[in-house]
């Protein structure tokens, strides 16, 4: 609720001044790419880990964190990828249905 302040002449001007700004199309892909690189770093860290070091329990935390970070980032990849594929699919659907003269999309 915006009942705390009485409407003034300035407020409509501020609404015009601070018009919402659409993010660029590439932003979703950027977030996805960053998640992918984090995932890759985590995988590399595990690859480079010497098994000998694993004999010392004090060294278990780092690879465990890498696994957690990697799986979290990988999951992020999937969800953003799905979003893009979904959007692309919708585009294809509408494109193909336009070509086919109709049809039901998902």
């Amino acid at each position, binding site marked *: 609720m915006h009942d705390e302040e009485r409407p003034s002449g300035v407020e409509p001007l501020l609404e015009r*001044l601070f018009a919402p700004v659409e993010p660029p199309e590439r932003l979703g892909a950027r977030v996805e790419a960053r998640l992918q690189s984090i995932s890759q770093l985590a995988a590399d860290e595990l690859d480079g880990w010497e098994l000998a070091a694993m004999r010392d329990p004090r060294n278990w935390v780092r690879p465990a964190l890498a696994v957690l970070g990697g799986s979290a980032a990988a999951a992020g990849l999937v969800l953003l990828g799905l979003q893009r594929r979904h959007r692309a699919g919708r585009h294809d659907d509408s494109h193909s249905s336009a070509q086919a003269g109709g049809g039901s999309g998902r």
Partner: protein
Amino acid sequence: MVEPVSTKAQLDREFAELYRTHARDLYSYAYYRVGNHHDAEDLTEQTFLQAYRHFERAQRESDGRPLRPWLLRIAHNLAANHYRYRSRRPQTTLDDNSPLEAVHSTEELVAGRDELARVLDAVKRLPDDRREALIMRFALGMDNREIARAIGRSDGATKVLIHRAIKQLEGVMALAEAGG
């Protein structure tokens, strides 16, 4: 065995929904806060990366409340770091590179829209915290409680912050009008 997988899948779906729902708000905030598209993209990206890392806990602790203030809080903190970093590396000031001027063309500001130009000038002179509260209120349509959660102040302090910001703008506008 199956349940954790489905819970994780559900969490991911919910994060995707969070992204879809709030990408524009986050980007608008970032843009008006940092002043250019390049840094706004960086800030929005970093916000969602951090959000993903803590999403499950945030959901658990949100108790059903909207997560937009939490997202904005992340962006608010990252933007503060951005300014701290920039203050150590003197570059252009906010005034030299105003996102508000970029959004509103010179034509729009000049062609019979003196009021908009005056309020733009006044907003640029506001202290950072007041301008930030106005961005959340007017670009994102957040209420006082949401803004309070996002900037880490009490509801009362936020109400005062916005009230003073608007009063300050009105004062500057009145002076400008009186001055011709």
